[in-house]
């Protein structure tokens, strides 16, 4: 099985996290959790030492979707909910690129919900990071698929009546071969999660919790920081190849009672690898020549 990153050219000189930041000033609200994700991503990028020109950051739409503009590399801030087809299309035609896909909880679990299972089961070698802030930030505070039941938002004035979904269990049920959880308030740990995702050959999913200080209150940072459990430190031992244990951790939905770290990891051929086998098989049909193709139309 291929190692992820193997086919991606490396930068000649060592780059720092700063080298992966553009000059554009992020227009996130002051204190927004998304800043931490940006910091973690640029840190992780500098650590894999890939050159900016071989990085593609693709997003859907939302506050989270603004990410590509702030990362030095090729970027595509595309349509709401459609980042996964876009990223898959890019990766399988350009396996030499590091493809990083991201988007909000609304982006990936509401409008984009239909693509998530298929990207996961196909297992292309991309990282998909979900900015799960439990709200629609960009459109100013409507409830999202991960908003806790009962919460009042601009579209649930009398409290939400829908049970939330859980991104991490969904990713597991979909067959994602890597599932981790990160908190934007801990940039180092978060960067490590992204780094591990980069290193994982196949579809690597990260549920990131970047508090939306504007619509979810600004207590979240503090409280999460106080209560977070960090997997495989402080005695929180966890074996990411143990499905049952992983499911249990994934199944945590209360952001104030959550474990962060690598939840699930599985070795499984990537889509690109399988594509390689398929092309080999197909090659037996005949040479890659147009004239021989034309022959099949002779009566």
């Amino acid at each position, binding site marked *: 099985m291929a190692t992820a990153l193997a086919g991606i050219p490396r930068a000649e000189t060592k780059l720092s996290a700063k080298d992966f930041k553009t000059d*554009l000033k992020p227009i996130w609200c002051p204190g927004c959790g998304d800043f931490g994700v940006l910091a973690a991503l640029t840190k992780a990028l500098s650590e894999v030492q890939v*050159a*900016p*020109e*071989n*990085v*593609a*950051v*693709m997003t859907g*739409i939302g506050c989270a979707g603004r990410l*590509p*503009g702030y990362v*030095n*590399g*090729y*970027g*595509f*801030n*595309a*349509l709401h909910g*459609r980042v*996964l*087809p*876009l*990223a*898959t*299309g*890019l990766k*399988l*035609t*350009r396996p*030499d*690129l590091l493809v990083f896909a991201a988007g909000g909880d609304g982006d990936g679990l509401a409008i984009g919900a*239909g*693509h998530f*299972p*298929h990207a996961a089961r196909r297992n292309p070698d991309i990282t998909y990071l979900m900015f799960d802030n439990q709200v629609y930030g960009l459109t100013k505070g409507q409830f999202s698929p991960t908003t806790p039941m009962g919460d009042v938002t601009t579209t649930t004035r009398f409290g939400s009546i829908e049970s939330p979904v859980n991104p991490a269990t969904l990713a597991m049920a979909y067959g994602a071969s890597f599932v981790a959880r990160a908190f934007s308030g801990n940039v180092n740990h978060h960067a490590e999660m992204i780094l591990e995702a980069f290193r994982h050959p196949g579809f690597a999913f990260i549920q990131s919790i970047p508090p939306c200080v504007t619509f979810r209150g600004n207590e979240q940072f503090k409280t999460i920081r106080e209560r977070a459990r960090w997997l495989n430190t402080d005695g929180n031992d966890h074996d990411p190849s143990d499905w049952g244990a992983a499911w249990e951790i994934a199944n945590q939905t209360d952001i104030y009672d959550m474990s962060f770290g690598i939840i699930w990891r599985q070795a499984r051929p990537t889509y690109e690898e399988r*594509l390689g086998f*398929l*092309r080999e*098989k*197909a*090659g037996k*049909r*005949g*040479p*890659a020549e*147009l*004239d021989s*193709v*034309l022959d099949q*139309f*002779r*009566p």
Partner: protein
Amino acid sequence: MIDVATSTTPAGAVSARRTTDDIVIGIVGSGGDGVISSGELLVSAAAAEGLYATILKSFGPQIRGGESSCRVRISREEALSYGDRLDVLVAFNWADFARFKEELELAPGVVVIYDSKDGTPVDQIPVDPALEPVILQIPFHELANEATGSSLSKNILLLGVLGELFDLPTDGIAEAVERKFRRKSEEVRAANSKALAAGRAYVLRELAEAPVPLSFVHEKGEPKLLMTGNEALAFGALKAGCRLYAGYPITPSSDVMEWLANELPRFGGTMMQTEDEIAAIGMCVGASFGGTKAMTSTAGPGLSLMTEFLGLASIAEIPVVIADIQRVGPSTGIPTKTEQCDFAHVAHAGPGDTPRVVVAPYDVADCFHMAVEAFNIAEEFQTPVIILSDQYLGQRKESVVPFDIHAWPVVDRLTFGGNGAEPYRRYRQGDGDVSPMAIPGQAGGEHTISGLEHVESGDPTSSSAVHARMNARRHAKLERLARERGAELVRTFGAPNPKLGIVCWGSTSAQAREAARRLNRAGHAVGVCVPQLLCPLPVEPIAAFLEGVERALWVELNHQGQFYHYARARLDLDAAHGHLYARSGGMPFSVQEIVDQVLALGEA
């Protein structure tokens, strides 16, 4: 009515044996009857002999075991259309025929052949006696059983009958059968030979005296190719350099993806069946962002779902090709039937002022060419391009004069070399209406694009002034395309200095051209104007054609006259040049229908 019951001597008034170089044969039956296979073998034989041939198939709504029919036309001259009326009808079973009656018009003097097993008495078959049909009952089941031990071979036996009866190239037929089954067992091939021979023998034995008024005359020529429009289109895409096809199955477009599923991988490409049409076009846009030529194909319902990505590709200026194999709409409509009803959608869909290019191939070979052209335009103008084909064009198999695939130029997009002198700007104003694209992997070309309005670098803006400038830039491309390529992408056919003009597009061109051919021979100066480029409208060449004629008729297969209205909004059409003949689809136009309309116009 001329009734020639099996093994009885010819009865009634026998008309003289007529020769022809153009014959239309319809065959109808149920799932197991092998109707389609018979038709395919006939055109295969014809193409191998250098004749022109075309086959149009039709199925009931059942997936298996349902009724099916095909219509084969073989001719010495180019078989432009499917042939309005049947010279020969073969019915394995009259119940099945009833379901296709609407589609199968019979010519006067039609030779009707039916399986004795059906049992319907000759005077009760559903054929209008006024046509003075020649009716032959043949015991296909029995004969096949006798010859091969199985009635399944009756469709091959039929080929023996048809060849002998109408002087079709019998050797060619035998070879076609042999070719088709060359990988089968010796027994199968022997059985086929026996069935063929039995068919021919039956005719010689029982129908030698039959009053069959038709004899097909021809000489052998250079073999033709045989392909469907969908195959030609897919092949064109491969030739143009398409290396990602992503799509979702839908009738009548699935053949495009099924063909590419076979061919792309050995070229290092990929055929991806996605979870839906949104993902399909999304994958294409993602791939094209990475510098790979990509295409999807679909039909109405799927096309609807691609609307949002169409807008994104348009504003972000990303080349992508979408083939729409039209079927009857609106909504699910009639999935297996043809209509030219998606024009209004493909020309306008997408909120905002969304530029896009629409091209329409006019015959099967042109599906290849327009596919290459679509990629070329997409790459050169950095825009989504829609190919408007349809079920009639996409699924009919047609003889194609062999062509040199290498003669067609392939255009690649302008890319950014990246000298590092100045920061890369994706939409740099000084470049005119198209700027070099930096492709991921290119150092110094890093940039971010989006569906947002943007300044030259690609970064978002909310400035009205910039928006106006960028809208102008995006539309300038289209104007340039019409200006630079319009003349070449509007084809004219028929009389050199026509008095009457037909304007039509896409698959309807087949019947319109044949109508003109017929009318020209009858002494009418009729010309046909066929824009291959529909959007942007090539105003000048169409206006020039219109100026040259006294009256013009616009013909298209949809209820509203969709292209006509689009053109009317952009051309100065007076009453004489603005006659519209549009009708709902299902059945394509017949040649006669267009001939009648043109004659009426001439008299108007």
